[in-house]
Every structure is written in C-alpha cells, then in structure tokens.
C-alpha cells in the first residue's frame, strides 16, 4: 500500500509526479508561510507537527496482527526515510549557510577573513578528494596515484591527527580542573574524591601493581575462599584495588545510572509530548 514499484515505467512516472508535486507544494508553501500572520503560521506548523508525530504514535498503539503489524506499520519505514531526507536537506542547508558566511567574510574583508579562505580551501579540497575516492572505491572513477596521495595526505596525515589532537586536549583540561576542583571541603566531596581515586587507580595497571605486586594480595579466588567468604584470604582477595573498583562500578554505579536513565527517559517523554503538541516556545 505504501510502496511504489519503480521497476515499471508507470511506477517511475508516478514517483516522478509525486516528487514534482511535493516540490511544487513546498515551493508554494514559502509565500503562503510568509503571508500568514504569526498565529496562523504557528497553527499550521503545529498541525503538521502533530500529524507527523501521530503516525508514529498511532502505529505503536494500534492493535497488531500475528506478524506484529497493523495497517500503519508499512508506512513507518517510508516515514523514517523521509526523516533522513529532511536530515540530508539540513546538511545541505548547513553547508550553504557556512559557505555564504565565509564567502561574505572574504568579499567584505572582515576581521580574520584569512581563516575563511583556509576553511573554504580545506572544504573544497577535502570534498573533491572524498567524492573522487568514494567513486573510485565503487569503480566508477579511476584510482590513480594522485588520488591516493591527495586523499592520504588530507585524510590520514591531516584530518585524523588534527581531530585526535582536538579531542585529546580534554585530558589537559581535566588534569588542570581536577587539580583545582577536587578539594576536601565537605564530607560529600571527600567521599566523591576517594571513590573517584579508587576507581581511577583500580581500573588501570597501577592498581594491579599496588595490589598484587606490592601488597601481595591473592589474584585468584580459590574454591576454599568461596566457601568461607569471611576468611582473611577472601577478604584480602576482595580488597584488591581492581576488585574494589569493579565493585564500585557494578554495585554502586549501575543502580544510580539506571535511576538517572529512568529520570532522563521520563523527562524525554514529557519533552517529546510538549514538542509533538507544539507547546514548546519558538514554533512560529
């Protein structure tokens, strides 16, 4: 019902007409949206948002057959494909906006316009080699030495190290922030600090060195230790830093994370309902 057979000429014509129809509709919507007063615009956007969301909600709540499907189920995949098309349009719009802004910077020679030149050159070079490389992988364009060198230089020798370097800067900020912020000012802060330290040491090889090499704590739990959980050997086994760190993560951290996730989930649901019903501000 929701699929068109594109292998036939009739199907191809039909899908072409649908595309043209939607294009005409959306182009026609632009003057209409501009002509409408803000209240009418809000009403129209709200109605479209509600209808789009209602498809997903109705598909989820309507009774299903033995296959687990209802009459709306086949529409979900095309609807999600539409979302991907909208995402792709947003990407194109973002690229257009970025180029427009930086071209204007260059033309008007605004402050630090040199960076805009670098951005546009980098964008064009990476775009050129990426598209060529992707087409070459599919055998649609030749894979030449120039492509290998160009793409390798930009991707392997520039993009990867630059991106990795940007992300790794966080480690330095964390070091500086931890030095200044982790202070014993209250009981709660002290508990947090000692727990964090235990996990930090316990999960890395230093925890192993301290526990097993320096303190000589048992590495393995023998059947005898399992039988006598309060035996000194078993207590020593459980006091090893890696085991304490794992216990903190598994026993203390996991329930708290679950509680947070439940809270976030309920908050997300409330927010989704507000968005669906256009109760959030900024819909104009």
């Amino acid at each position, binding site marked *: 019902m929701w699929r068109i057979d594109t292998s036939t000429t009739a199907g191809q014509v039909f899908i072409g007409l649908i595309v043209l129809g939607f294009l005409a509709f959306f182009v026609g919507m632009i003057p209409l949206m501009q002509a409408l007063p803000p209240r009418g615009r809000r009403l129209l956007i709200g109605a479209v948002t509600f209808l789009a969301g209602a498809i997903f909600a109705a598909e989820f709540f309507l009774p299903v057959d033995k296959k687990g499907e209802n009459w709306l189920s086949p529409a979900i*995949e095309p609807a*999600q*494909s539409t*979302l*991907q098309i909208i*995402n792709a349009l947003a990407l194109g719009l973002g690229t257009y906006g970025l180029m427009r802004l930086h071209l204007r910077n260059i033309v008007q020679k605004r402050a630090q316009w040199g960076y805009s030149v670098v951005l546009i050159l980098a964008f064009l070079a990476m775009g050129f080699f*990426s598209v060529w*490389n992707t087409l070459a*992988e*599919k*055998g*649609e364009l030749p894979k030449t030495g120039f492509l290998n060198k160009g793409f390798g230089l930009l*991707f*392997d020798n520039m*993009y*990867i*190290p*630059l*991106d*990795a370097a*940007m*992300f*790794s800067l966080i*480690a*330095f900020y*964390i*070091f*500086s922030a*931890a*030095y*200044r912020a*982790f*202070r*014993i000012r209250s009981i709660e802060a002290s508990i947090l*600090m000692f727990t964090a*330290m235990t996990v*930090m*040491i316990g*999960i*890395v*090889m*230093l925890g*192993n*060195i301290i526990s*097993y090499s320096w303190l000589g704590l048992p*590495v393995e739990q023998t059947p005898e230790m399992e039988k006598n959980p309060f035996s000194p050997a078993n207590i020593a086994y459980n006091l*090893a830093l*890696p085991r304490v760190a*794992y216990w903190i*993560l*598994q026993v203390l*951290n*996991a329930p708290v*994370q*679950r509680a947070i*996730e439940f809270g976030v989930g309920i908050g997300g649901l409330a927010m989704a309902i507000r968005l669906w019903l256009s109760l959030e501000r900024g819909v104009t």
Partner: protein
Amino acid sequence: MENRTFWQQMLLIDRRILYMILFANMIIFLLVPVKVKTVTSPPVRKFYDTIEQLHPGDMVMVSSNWGAGTIGESLPQFEAVIRHLMRKKLRFTILSFEPQARDISLRFATRFTKEGGYKYGEQWAHFGFMPSPAVAIKGMVKDLPATIKQDVKGIPISQLPVMRGVQTLADYKVVIDVTPSGTVSAWISYRPQNLKVLFCPTSVMAAEAYTFLDSGQVAGMLTGAIGAQEYEQLLGIEGLGTSFAKAISFSHALIILFVILGNIALFMSRRAQGG
C-alpha cells in the same frame, strides 16, 4: 610582590606548567617499555569468551561508529577485535552509522585484514554508512540485502561470497559495537533475540553501560584503551592498547598525586593564615 609560601604557590600554579607535566608524563610512559601483567576484568573476560565460543565461519557484525576524535581509545579496541575475529576464522561485516566512521574503519580494516590474510568479499566486507541506526537495524532484521543493498565498492551484497546463507540479522551470531556514541541502545532495542551484543565504548561512556552488562543485554565490554590492553593480553599480542594503557595508567597516577598535593597545599595555606 608579597612573599608566598611554597604551598601558596602550589595553589596558584600556572595551568601551562600542569599541561607540560602531563605531556612529559605521557610521552615518557609511551616510550618506556614497562611490562605489567594485569588481571582481566570480568567484562573483558566475558567479551573474550563470547568470541571464543563462536565457530569458524560464523557471522559477526562490527558496528564501527568512531571517528578520529576517539582514535586513542577506539582504534586499539577495533584492532584487537578484528585480530581476534581473524584468528577464530570468523566471517565479519562492518557497518557505520557515522559518515566519518565509514572511511576510518574501512582504511584500518583494510590494513588489518591484509596483514591477517583475509580477502575482501570472501571473509569480510564493509557495508559503508547507514543513517539512522534504528531504521537500519529494523530493516536488517527483516531483510538484510534489501536494506543494505550494496557494499562500499558498489557490489550488491547478495553477490558477496561472505554473505552466503545470510538473509537477515538473525543469521549473525554477534554484533560488536565500537562506538563513542549511543548506538548500542539501538542494537539492544531492535536486534533479533539470538544476536549477542558486545560493546566497546570509550572510558567516559563505560559507566552508563554497566546497567546493560548487569542485565545481560550486553554480553561483554572493553572499556577504552584499558579494556583493549586487557583484551590484547588475553590474545597474547602487544598492540596499541598495551602502549596506550601505560600512558593512561601513569597519567591517572599523576592526576591523583596532584589532587593530593592540591589538598595538602590548601590545608597548609589555611593553617599558615590561621584559618
């Protein structure tokens, strides 16, 4: 300029000095050959055992969603996983839900498989980039070739020898999600029930994943480069994880040392001021 005590100067230490100390610490421990045998944590052991239980020829899906930003943690995991899959003679396919993850995983997988003697199309394949994990997974559960259509080389995946006997995601045994983002929840939610999920998050994400590990929805986990190092130890290889873990380990020690020094400095300064 007023006279400051050593501890007061410690409290006001320039952040650039801290950065230099951390930088020197990382460089030294990346280069110094320190060999420490560590105890394998239970999530890593479960991860390893899950792969070990598979039979040669079984299908594994590697969901590779990391980019260059997390290369320090994700690449050691990715490398160790691919090497283990090849050692077990398993067939595997790679899929990315992030555009840049497609290129990066393809380049590294091509390098590792060449070293391991794996042939593209016969023992492994790359499905490229798919947007929207939920839609892609739901589609693969119903009809995998119709959802993916073609691989990165433009070959219809139904024509790839590696895909023989594979029609849906249920024909796979394990999915391994190497990711710094939240894609694992989509795998958990929409996978076929027989498909086991193995997870390779970055260190900051691992804390959230213990709920899935606890419930059994995730069968095993490698936490960042440390997890990769433990995994390499089980495999008996020394890869990127082993060298990165040394630097991370001693950086943790340095941070703790400075946190302690900072607290002593605070205490001593207050005492000097009579506070």
